[in-house]
């Protein structure tokens, strides 16, 4: 009946298609890797300090053979997930309130605009003060703080984007404010929120890493710091590579969720041609 059902992931054929699609999008990666390999092998960039990708990958595989890397990954992912979750919930909620109510918006604007450019360095004392016994809680805090703002901004802008006719329709049917907010305004804002989540996700990841580097909570960031301090160039770039790959994977996950949630949206409608 519906002509826009997504390809059924269950069948073997579509699994293959999915896989081929995935491979097919690696062309850009391959080009970049080749360029990096070439420029370091020819010492256009000093390979002593910037190891060629092949070496970095080799080091990464080596590292993944041991437990340390996996513990670090788990540690980082945990802080990331928590921080992002808090930011998304708080950002969307706050965005809904602030986006729907001019008074709330104007009252909070100075504070929000003041807090947004506060760099994490300024928060370090706060982290030590609030999370003296729980530094990974501190990285969660850093991540949540920094990624809250993208969520908030994107949500407010998304809400502004709702069609007046759609809200009027809901109002004319006396739909409860809560339902209007959650089922009319929020869905219209979802395209913006989805972009926001993808931005916030990497911001959170970056802040978790930064937090781990700076305050020494365990995780990939700490490994990066230790490798860097130990002049273990290959290991350091291996961990940076790991961070980047995590970013790619997490983003792919969000893209998949987004495809499902936004299948009604022009950007995800099945091409009608």
């Amino acid at each position, binding site marked *: 009946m519906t002509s826009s059902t997504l390809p059924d992931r269950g069948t073997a054929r579509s699994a293959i298609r999915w896989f081929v699609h995935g491979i097919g999008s*690696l062309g*850009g990666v391959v080009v970049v890797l080749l360029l990096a390999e070439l420029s370091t092998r020819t010492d256009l960039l000093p390979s002593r300090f910037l190891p060629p990708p092949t070496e970095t990958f080799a080091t990464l595989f080596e590292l993944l053979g041991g437990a340390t890397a996996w513990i670090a990954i788990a540690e980082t992912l945990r802080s990331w997930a928590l921080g992002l979750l808090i930011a998304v919930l708080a950002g969307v909620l706050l965005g809904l309130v602030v986006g729907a109510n001019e008074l709330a918006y104007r009252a909070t604007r100075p504070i929000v605009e*003041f*807090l947004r*450019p506060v760099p994490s360095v300024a928060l370090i004392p706060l982290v030590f003060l609030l999370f003296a016994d729980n530094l990974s809680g501190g990285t969660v805090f850093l991540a949540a703080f920094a990624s809250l703002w993208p969520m908030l901004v994107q949500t407010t802008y998304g809400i502004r984007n709702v069609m007046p006719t759609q809200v009027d329709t809901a109002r004319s049917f006396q739909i409860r404010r809560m339902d209007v907010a959650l089922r009319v305004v929020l869905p219209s804002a979802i395209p913006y929120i989805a972009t926001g989540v993808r*931005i916030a996700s990497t911001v959170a990841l970056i802040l978790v890493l930064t937090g781990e580097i700076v305050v020494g909570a365990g995780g990939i960031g700490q490994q990066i710091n230790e490798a860097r301090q130990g002049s273990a160039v290959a290991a350091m770039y291996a961990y940076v590579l790991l961070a980047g790959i995590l970013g790619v994977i997490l*983003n792919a996950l969000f893209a998949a969720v987004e495809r499902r949630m936004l299948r009604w949206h022009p*950007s995800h409608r099945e091409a009608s041609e």
Partner: protein
Amino acid sequence: MTSSRRNALYVSAEIATPLLVVAAIFVFTNAAGSFYFPPFQDVLVAFQQNWLFSRVMSDVAPSLVRLLIGFAIAIVVGVGLGLLLGKVAWLRRQAGPVVEFLRAVPPPALLPFTIIAIGVDSTAKVALIAFVCVWPILLNTMDGIAGIEPTLRSTDRVYRIRAWDHLVHVELRAASPQIFAGIRTALPLAIILMVISEMVASTNGVGYFIVQAQRSFALADMWSGILLLGILGYLLNLVFTGVERLALGWHLRSHAAVS
């Protein structure tokens, strides 16, 4: 309520809340007696000494120049690349993983690379600012382009609008509400990265000042720097809101019915 009275209410709310918060901070810092959170009046004194206006030319000006250049580059590259990737599907597919990878590289890990590839001068700092700010703009441009009302696109095709006109006058305009969301998200990132970039190989700048103050445990100085960043953020945002009003007037007014 008349609109002028409502406006008065909004303006007073916008003035009242920060005052309340300042009062709370004042009480807290004086009561807590924490070394890291010196009494607010000390911070104000430090602010007056540092920023009114002895360091304006020596530190604020170079920082601002780098920030503005970096941010401008981010906007141009973000919107341009976002348009390109938004329009060209195969390119988007190919570039996607690379973009996602680059986005996830934390600035502290980026540092070694910039030092090697670019060096330690202002260019590197500007590059760092641009590099981080570009992503929210790029993503929003891409997604904004993808979400354009299909009928508009069909209209352009039927009237065979030239590619350039279509891009500039339709795609870009239609996506502009979302592009502005991206720029708004990126704006404070520019300030943060201005600070981070000045933590290495700097001899001036607000970030340099903050780091030095923190290192020498001159906490009142440090917080005065943070205060400055906040004020800077608020002011830049104000400017931005003005620009946005001009560019998105049609959007804001056509959606104004939402109450």
